[in-house]
């Protein structure tokens, strides 16, 4: 999910970076208030912990492996504000010293992985934990928090990619930065995260929190009880953002609708160097057979990912309830 430079326009990077500044300021302030002086080095050690987490490969069914981001895990262990600073520092080291993730795109990467991921994941976790006063409630919170945290972060990255061709084109209408509209970037980013990365994140978070609860129960961060306001604020923010996404996708839709007419004309000229051909040639069905269904408009990709997401959720819940039925004989959740 590390966005490299030149995929996003400098303007986008500046806007998102500016949006991160108050978040960082709040995080620093909150951490100074909340964490006693003698715990301050924990932030740095926590950052190296989060950096190393990305090095750990989690075994996946079928013999493959994947690695987790661990944003929700850090938020649960150290609190969301400390997690925000730790992940920010880990990302800065990756960008500045390892060349992984862009320097200009640093703000955007932080927005996705150091803000959305830990805060949303922690918010969901805390919400569930405070509502359902049992072990099961807490673990449901961990599962949902880590799964949605990473997926919404991936969605945010996809939206950042997807708005580039709408906003930044040169005189000939060619996109200057990431060339894929929302209809491509959203399924391309979210489907792998829904299927693989999200599951890795859940396994990782649940097993580690379980281990630490067993071995050293006092070390887990205890946030204030009334988080309801925060989660409602978060929901409100998400609701406010939704029309933005629809608006942007609506424009993409209209644009592509017009293109489809041109496609008939330019479809036969492969790699035509005229601006017309560049702008309207469309054949991603041939290149990305996994995501597209031939003959359907690109919006299908968009809808497809939504359908896939819903289907995956239903499958997961059915599996969970089936497992529960076996062990306890009653279905919860």
């Amino acid at each position, binding site marked *: 999910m590390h966005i490299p430079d030149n995929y996003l326009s400098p303007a986008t990077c500046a806007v998102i970076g500016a949006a991160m500044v108050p978040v960082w300021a709040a995080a620093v302030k909150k951490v100074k208030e909340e964490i006693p002086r003698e715990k301050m080095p924990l932030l740095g050690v926590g950052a190296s912990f989060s950096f190393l987490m990305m090095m750990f490969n*989690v075994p996946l069914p079928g013999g493959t492996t994947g690695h987790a981001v661990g944003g929700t895990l850090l938020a649960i262990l150290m609190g969301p504000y400390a997690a925000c600073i730790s992940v920010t520092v880990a990302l800065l080291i990756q960008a500045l010293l390892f060349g992984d993730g*862009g320097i200009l795109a640093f703000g955007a990467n932080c927005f996705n992985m150091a803000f959305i991921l830990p805060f949303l994941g922690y918010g969901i976790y805390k919400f569930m934990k405070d509502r359902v006063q049992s072990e099961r409630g807490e673990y449901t919170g961990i599962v949902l928090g880590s799964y949605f945290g990473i997926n919404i972060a991936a969605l945010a990255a996809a939206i950042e990619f997807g708005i580039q061709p709408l906003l930044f084109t040169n005189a000939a209408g060619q*996109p200057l930065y990431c060339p894929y509209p929302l209809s491509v970037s959203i399924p391309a980013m979210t489907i792998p995260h829904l299927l693989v990365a999200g599951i890795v994140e859940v396994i990782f978070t649940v097993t580690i929190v379980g281990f630490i609860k067993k071995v050293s129960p006092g070390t887990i961060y205890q946030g204030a009880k009334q988080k309801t306001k925060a989660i409602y604020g978060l929901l409100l923010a998400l609701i406010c953002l939704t029309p933005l996404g629809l608006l942007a996708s609506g424009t993409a839709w209209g644009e592509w609708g017009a293109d489809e007419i041109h496609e008939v004309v330019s479809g036969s000229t492969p790699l035509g160097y005229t601006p017309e051909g560049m702008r309207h040639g469309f054949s991603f069905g041939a290149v990305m057979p996994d995501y597209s269904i031939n003959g359907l408009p690109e919006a299908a990709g968009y809808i497809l990912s939504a359908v896939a997401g819903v289907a995956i959720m239903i499958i997961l819940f059915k599996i969970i309830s089936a497992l529960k039925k076996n062990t306890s004989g009653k279905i919860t959740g």
Partner: protein
Amino acid sequence: MPEWLLKDESYIPESDKDTFINKSILSLLGLLARIRTQGCDKTDKYFVHAALKVAFTFLLILLLSISRNFTFIVISMVYLLVILSLMRGKEILHILKVSSAMALFTFIVLLPSAFWGNGYSIVTITSKVLATIIAVNILSHSAKWNSITSALKVFHVPDIFIFVLDITIKYIAMLGEFSLYMLYALKLRSVGKNHNKYAALSGIAGTLFIKSKEMAEEMHAAMECRGFTGEYSVHNRFKFTAADFIYILINAGLLTIFVYLERI
């Protein structure tokens, strides 16, 4: 001698897929090697102040990103290649490996858009990504990491971030070594089929977290004993050398070329 000791036994352990341990070990080893090369024999031969390097690398990346002129990208590539040619063979190899991998990845990602007929992005973005990654890697290889963090102080980054950054770099190495030993232990002890892979992994990561918590507390105690108040002050005054001057001149030249080319 008991009888069972004399009996021949042929125990063939069941084969098990433990790629996850091997992969984790390899990525940790790569990371540690990268950090260790930082510590030793780094004589800043072409001594340019780290703050200047950070500032101008940032400027170059910004210019590359804004630029719509392919000539400028080519010129900056040439400039970067010249700097690269002044570095050591091992470093050059590493930088080129990392950056070409990233450029190749970008190329593959953008390939579908070329089939859409957007030939512009695939050429410019791939070369921009290549140039950017080379630039960042040159910075990270040519300046010591602690001088980069001290350069951040010049740009008025809050103390808490520098403090955290400093600790992080040191502790990545320490905790990395620690987890490496645990992974070795896990590998040595799992003979035959290991049915508790997740438990083993969460054991390592969980122990790592508890360990890091302890280390943090110990470090704070040690720092307090030495009178650290949480504030950083840069002690070595900024001395302007001839190398700095040449470096600024070259970068000013690049900026001029950029302005000239983009005007057209």
